[in-house]
Every structure is written in structure tokens, then in C-alpha cells.
């Protein structure tokens, strides 16, 4: 079999050391052999959430490029000392491009990249780059803004529940963008946040969602990985938004839509640029316009005019006419943080650590 031959060759390469491995990887590109792409995942591919979304994209790349690409992945790589070894191992094994898909891999990725200048690295969600390390992330907050618009139109109690994982900027940004969308159509609505301090605990997430529901929330949003909150909403007969991917399987009545990552096209693009030899280190932060962020199909319970409104807003965001954080943006005290006529800079969004007006409660620090 071809695959077995390949790993024989790899074994050889390893025995001969780094230099030879590098030489071979260079060879493999010129000899029109498949370009090798490695993926480092923080969770199991079976977590049904974050890692699952990346692995889906890996398969998408394989489907699209066929035998022009060969992918490998390592799952559940701890973000401590292990990460560096795994990334290095992937580099050593002759991968041309390596995606490191969790924030905690930032420093290990940079360390390995220094030693493998010919290998390209793409790190998700980080803020440090190098000549051969690019970063990428999706503007999921744009999708969340749109779900906010839907929530504002659909809520009757004017209380939305939000199940959060950890109060890091990425999550706070999502809550704020959602609230901006919500209040843009319904200034009376408020958002209640409950932190579960876990990315993945279906039972606890479900309990958090139910707690919010019994405190008056009639729509649930989440920034955790499991479908627990959707299941809670379905059981209690309220609406909910999914996250990561279309979660309607877990509650088809409750699931209004989901803000989803669509890494497939992003990865395809990066891999193609390596094949074409024009890869450069960039800071890719794509949203609705690039297709990196998308909304899952809308629930038929959403009225026609709301669907139309969401479509309009989406277009406006895509065309750059609308920004979820366009001034005036006020914080909880009513102080103006982004004046009218301006939009929040990417840098400010990256380190966002305050709630906008409309979010109840205090952000735990």
C-alpha cells in the first residue's frame, strides 16, 4: 500500500535526523508529491464542539484536494510541555504546513517555528506571529451579532440567557456582540450570563441553561462546546442558539440557528497557497464576508420579516457598512467607550474585558 511505503520512507527520514527530514519535505513539494498538512487539536476529535469543527475542516480539505494533500492530526494535546513536542514531531515528520488550533499553543508554536524555518505554521486565535507563523481566527462575533438581532425580535420576556465558559476576551466579545445585536432591535432586552468554568461539561451546561430559563430567560445562547443548553431549551420549550456547528439535531424546535465556524474554506485556502508556493505569514481574521463564520439554517419559526432583517444586516456587515461594535458603544455604566462614527479597533476587540450596556451582572475578573 502506498501509505505504508510512505511511512517507511518517513522512518528512514527520522533515523537520519532533522536535516534529512527537512530535505525530504522540500523534495516532496518539488516532486509533486502530496503536500503534507498537520493538525494539533486540544480536545478529542469526538468532543462534538471546537475540535470537531476543525477536524471537519480537515476532512473537507482532503475531500477537495484529493491526493494532492495528506493530512495528519494529533488529538487531545495538552497545552503544557507536550504541545511543543507534538508540534515539533509534526514538523520533523515532514509536514509542510501545521495548524495549531488552540490559544495555548501560541508560545510552543513560535518556539518550534524558529527551529523549522521552512515549515509553515498557522496558529488559531493567538496574537503573536513570525515569518513562518501566521495566525487565523474567525469573526464569530459577527454571527453572534446576527443571532442577537433574531433574539431581540423573538424574545417575549426580554431576558436572554447566556451560558459562558471562561471570562476570556473571545467569550466576552461574543457576549457583547450578541448584546449589541439584541439591543439594536430591542433596547429593553437584557442578557444574563452564567459561567460554568468548563469548556465541556454537558450536564453542567444544561443545568446552567435551565437556571437561566427559570430566571426568566426565554432564549438561550452559549459559548461552551456541548449541546447541553440546546437540550435544556428543547425540554423547557424555549428557544436557543447553537455554537460551533449546526446543533439542530439536538432540539429541532428550540434551535433558532447557530453561529458556526466554517474553517473548511480557510484551511483550503491556506493549503492551496502552500501548494502554489505563495504562502505568507498573515493575520487572518475573517468573518461573514469570507465565509469563515456562517449562520446555520434558520428555524422556520422565525417570522419572514425577521429573516429579511437578518439577511439585510448580514449583507451590511459583509459590505462593511455595519460593524457590531460601531459607535456609540456604551459600557454597563453608560459611559461611551466607542464614540459615534467610529468602530472598535481589532486590537481593542482582542482584549475586550468589559460588558456593553444591556448585559446584567459583573464580569468576574
Amino acid at each position: 500500500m502506498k501509505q505504508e511505503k510512505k511511512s517507511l520512507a518517513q522512518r528512514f527520514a527520522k533515523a537520519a535526523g532533522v536535516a534529512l527530514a527537512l530535505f525530504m519535505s522540500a523534495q516532496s513539494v518539488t516532486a509533486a508529491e502530496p503536500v503534507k498538512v498537520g493538525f494539533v487539536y486540544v480536545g478529542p476529535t469526538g468532543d462534538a464542539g471546537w475540535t470537531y469543527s476543525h477536524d471537519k475542516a480537515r476532512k473537507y480539505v482532503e475531500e477537495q484536494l484529493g491526493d494532492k494533500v495528506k493530512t495528519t492530526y494529533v488529538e487531545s494535546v495538552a497545552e503544557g510541555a507536550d504541545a511543543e513536542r507534538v508540534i515539533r514531531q509534526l514538523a520533523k515528520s515532514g509536514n509542510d504546513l501545521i495548524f495549531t488550533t488552540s490559544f495555548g499553543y501560541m508560545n510552543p508554536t513560535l518556539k518550534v517555528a524558529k527551529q523549522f524555518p521552512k515549515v509553515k505554521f498557522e496558529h488559531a486565535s493567538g496574537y503573536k506571529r513570525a515569518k513562518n507563523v501566521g495566525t487565523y481566527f474567525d469573526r464569530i462575533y459577527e454571527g453572534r451579532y446576527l443571532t442577537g438581532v433574531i433574539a431581540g425580535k423573538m424574545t417575549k420576556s426580554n431576558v436572554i440567557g447566556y451560558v459562558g465558559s471562561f471570562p476570556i476576551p473571545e467569550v466576552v466579545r461574543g457576549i457583547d456582540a450578541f448584546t449589541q445585536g439584541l439591543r439594536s432591535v430591542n433596547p429593553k432586552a437584557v442578557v444574563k450570563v452564567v459561567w460554568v468554568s468548563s469548556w465541556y461539561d454537558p450536564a453542567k451546561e444544561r443545568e446552567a441553561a435551565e437556571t437561566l430559563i427559570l430566571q426568566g430567560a426565554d432564549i438561550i445562547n452559549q459559548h461552551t462546546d456541548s449541546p447541553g443548553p440546546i437540550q435544556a431549551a428543547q425540554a423547557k420549550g424555549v428557544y436557543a442558539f447553537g455554537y460551533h456547528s449546526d446543533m439542530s439535531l439536538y432540539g429541532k424546535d428550540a434551535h433558532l440557528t447557530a453561529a458556526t465556524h466554517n474553517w473548511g474554506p480557510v484551511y483550503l485556502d491556506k493549503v492551496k497557497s502552500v501548494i502554489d508556493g505563495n504562502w505568507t505569514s498573515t493575520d487572518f481574521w475573517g468573518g461573514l464576508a469570507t465565509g469563515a463564520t456562517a449562520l446555520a439554517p434558520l428555524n422556520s419559526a422565525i417570522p419572514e420579516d425577521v429573516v429579511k432583517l437578518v439577511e439585510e444586516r448580514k449583507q451590511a456587515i459583509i459590505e462593511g457598512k455595519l460593524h457590531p461594535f460601531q459607535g456609540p458603544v456604551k459600557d454597563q455604566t453608560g459611559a461611551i467607550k466607542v464614540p459615534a462614527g467610529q468602530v472598535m479597533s481589532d486590537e481593542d476587540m482582542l482584549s475586550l474585558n468589559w460588558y456593553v450596556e444591556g448585559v446584567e451582572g459583573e464580569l468576574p475578573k
Partner: protein
Amino acid sequence: MIFKLERRVDDSRWMAYLSPILAGALTLITGSILFWALDKDPLQTLYTFFIAPVSDLYGWTELGVKAAPIMLCALGLAVCYRGKVWNIGAEGQLLFGALVGGAVALQFLESDSAFALPLVLLAGALAGMAWAAIPALLKTHFNTNEILTTIMLNYIALNLLLFSVHGPLKDPGGFNFPESALFTEAVTLPLLLEDSRMHIGILFALFALVAVWVLLSKTFVGFQIKVLGLDTRAAHFAGFKERRLVWLALLLSGALAGLAGVCEVSGPIGQLVPQVSPGYGYAAIIVAFLGRLHPVGILLSSMLMALIYIGGELVQIELNLPLALTGLFQGMLLFFLLACDVLIVYRIRLNPRFSTMRKPSPEALVNGADAKLSTHSQ
């Protein structure tokens, strides 16, 4: 039963050495069957799992990096377990050592003092020791079961670490992400080999190995610990100060685990992060038993454990096998070993008549086999 287990007159020294090898062989055979069932060439898979990771010098250095913290923890645990002090808390002691050592390291962001690094290491070891002092105090003064307190303390230490990196120790220039600033050169462990990650932590581990060996086999304290583990009453009659021995075992073990923790953050990680240890403290329990609570055994078994971790990654990369195999292999290996250990004190005989198992002598326990038999009358 067709076979019966018959008590040996003396414990088999041979089997004490043979049992791990037998367990290893059984694991390999079971593994091969598993790989074969998964449509993978068993030989090639085993090669990738167990040999390819150490087929070059770099591979060995990585093995050292991975084995060092496990070895440090396991050595301390061996001292505890010899004295029948069931410390399950190496994980918590490691994390607390990393947390406090890391917090001290963060005070030296502007300094290049030569005293910084020793201070950081000392802080880490003392912190681990302090964390182990809690169960020691509770056991000696309040008669509290250390198995349970150390498990609880593991969770508390983990949450303290999480709290700290999400809060007070967060990198001020780090966009609010939950990790500390990167440590400076002054508080980073020097490397032993250029172009590798092998830091001097491995030397600490080897030094600890010799020290524990001397302690256990050459000193009176070590003898006392062994007697205590064998027979509490005998230790008592001999006038050994039981409490002092419990304290000693736990403090030593805590210090070693704390040192392992601080070496991780000031070595290969280089900063405080939420995930300092992928369960080294728990792996060390297995390693301690695999190594029959003997320093040399622990040296070998910690390397084997590290190899299983690294090999598990490699078979994913090379052969697309799931990570779950790592856990399967570790579990299997330990099961087989625990099962094979029975042969140290028993021999298998064809059963002429359905008869009973009998018990081993206390000496068997010292061998680390910890094999005691229950009745099996029917």
C-alpha cells in the same frame, strides 16, 4: 478451577524481575491483536509505538523531558508507599509547587540575578512540601485518611492554579488570556544539550533517584519506613516514631513533586499556564508500582511510561490511530503487571483437587509487589 495457585516456600526473586517483563510481553501481544483487528500491521505499529520515538538522540532527550517529572513524583511516592502512606496527591503537590515557584519566577521579570533560579526552585519544592504537610498533619494529629485528603487537595490545587492564571498572575500584556508572562532567561532552567529541550531537571531526578535509593537501603530511617509498611505493630514495638516517619515520607514526596512542578514551568513550558500537568501525579502512582517501589525500577518504568505517551502521539501522526490507545495501553500494562505479580509468591500448578489459595508472607510486600492474597474457599 483447573489450575491452582500454590504458595511458594520463598518469594521468587526471579519472578520479581520477570513479572514486569511478562506483563510487558502480554501487553505487546494484546496490543498486536488489537492493531491487527484495526487493520494495521502489528509489527510496524509496535515499532512506531515503542522504537521509533527513541530512534535518535533527540528522541531520547524528549523521553528524558517527559520522564523527569514522572520520575520525581514516583520516587517520592515510593518512599510513601513503602511505609504504607497512601499519598495520591503528587498531582496537587506538583501543581502547587508549579504555582508558587511560578509566582516567584514572575517577580524576577526585570532581574538577571544568579540567585533567582535557585530561589524559584526552592520555592517550588517548599510549596510542594507544604501542600503535602496538610495531609501529614491531618493524618498524624487528626487520624484522617490520607488517600481521601490528598485526592481532595489535588482538586483544590488545580483550582488555585486556574484562579491564579485567570486572575492575579495573568500576563498584563497578554490580551487577557489566561496565562502568565513568559519567564526570563534568569529563571529558566539551563539546557543540557543544545537544540533539545532537555533541561537540568533530569539531573535533579537522577540525583533524587540516588538519594532515595540511599535513604531506603542504606539508612536506618529507610529501614524504619520499610518495617512500618510491613507491620505497624512491629514498628511500634521497636519504638519507631511512627508519626515522624509519616511526616518524613509525605514531606519528602511533596518536595520532590513540587520540584517536578516548578521544573515544568521554568523548563519546557516557560510560563504559568492553566494546564501545567497532563496528570503526571497520577501517572507516577502507576510508575511507582510498575517500578516495584524501587528507585531503579522507577527509573525504568518512568521511561516506559513516557515512551507510551510519546509513542501514542507518534502512532497518531504516522498511522492515524486514535489517542485512546495510550490510555488502553497504560491500563493494560498495569493490569497485567498486577496480575503477574501474583507469581512472585505463588506458582501455578495443575489442580489435582479443587483446593484453596493461601496467603503470602509479609516479605512479599517489601518486594513492592504488595501482593497479599485473600481466601478463596469454595
